[in-house]
């Protein structure tokens, strides 16, 4: 299997949050992550961003009173 470039990986990581990825796509990502720390970080950060957005309505600036 040919290694995907980081650019394509970042695109797929984002799409993985919006649609179900195919088996081939998931395998290609896993292979790439095994070898690329930057993309591993990107993937973690994208999932963190989703958690942060879910938490925003409750955690966004509370009034002090």
């Amino acid at each position, binding site marked *: 299997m040919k290694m995907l470039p980081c650019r394509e990986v970042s695109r797929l990581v*984002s799409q993985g949050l919006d649609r179900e990825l195919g088996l081939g796509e998931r395998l290609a990502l896993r292979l790439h992550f095994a070898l690329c720390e930057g993309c591993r970080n990107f993937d973690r950060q994208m999932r963190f961003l989703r958690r942060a957005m879910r938490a925003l309505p409750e955690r966004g600036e509370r009034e002090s009173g």
Partner: protein
Amino acid sequence: MAPQRDFRRQLEDQRPYLLRYALLQLRDAEAAEDAVQETLLAALAGDAAYAGRSSLRTWLTGILKHKIVDALRRARREQPLGADDAGAELAELDALFVADGHWRDPPAGWDDPDRALEQKQFFAALELCLERLPARTARAFLMREHLGLETDEICKELAISATNCWVMLYRARVTLRQCLEATWFGEQRASR
């Protein structure tokens, strides 16, 4: 104090928060005011529906989300959004990568990011980053991650193809990641 009056006051207390929330998504003061007003009225009318299972704020935010979606639909009917700028969006992403598709600047790890979710200042930084996104991109992103709509609903609302929708969401996420890196996580790394 009579319970009904007390409830009304509690609702009023939430108004500033709800307004900021609506403004973030609608980017139109008048439309945001309207959505919040409708939410508070609906809450008052449906007093019995609030059973205290969730916090008052969570319950109100749930109502407000529906009002925001309604407002977005109305806005789209009255003033359809402009032509797609997916091409420009892609060009902007080009800057992040070198010609062979590698990162120009590979993302560095974020130190224990979930700890940030305990910090009020972090959410203030996140809101600032959201405000900096281009309006259309922000709208698509907030519909997805804040209102929890599926991609096909967003495409329909914004009248764009699924592919363009994915590109907009991708762009929003990448831009927010960079903004949080610059304004929050990079700082944290530097201060250690």
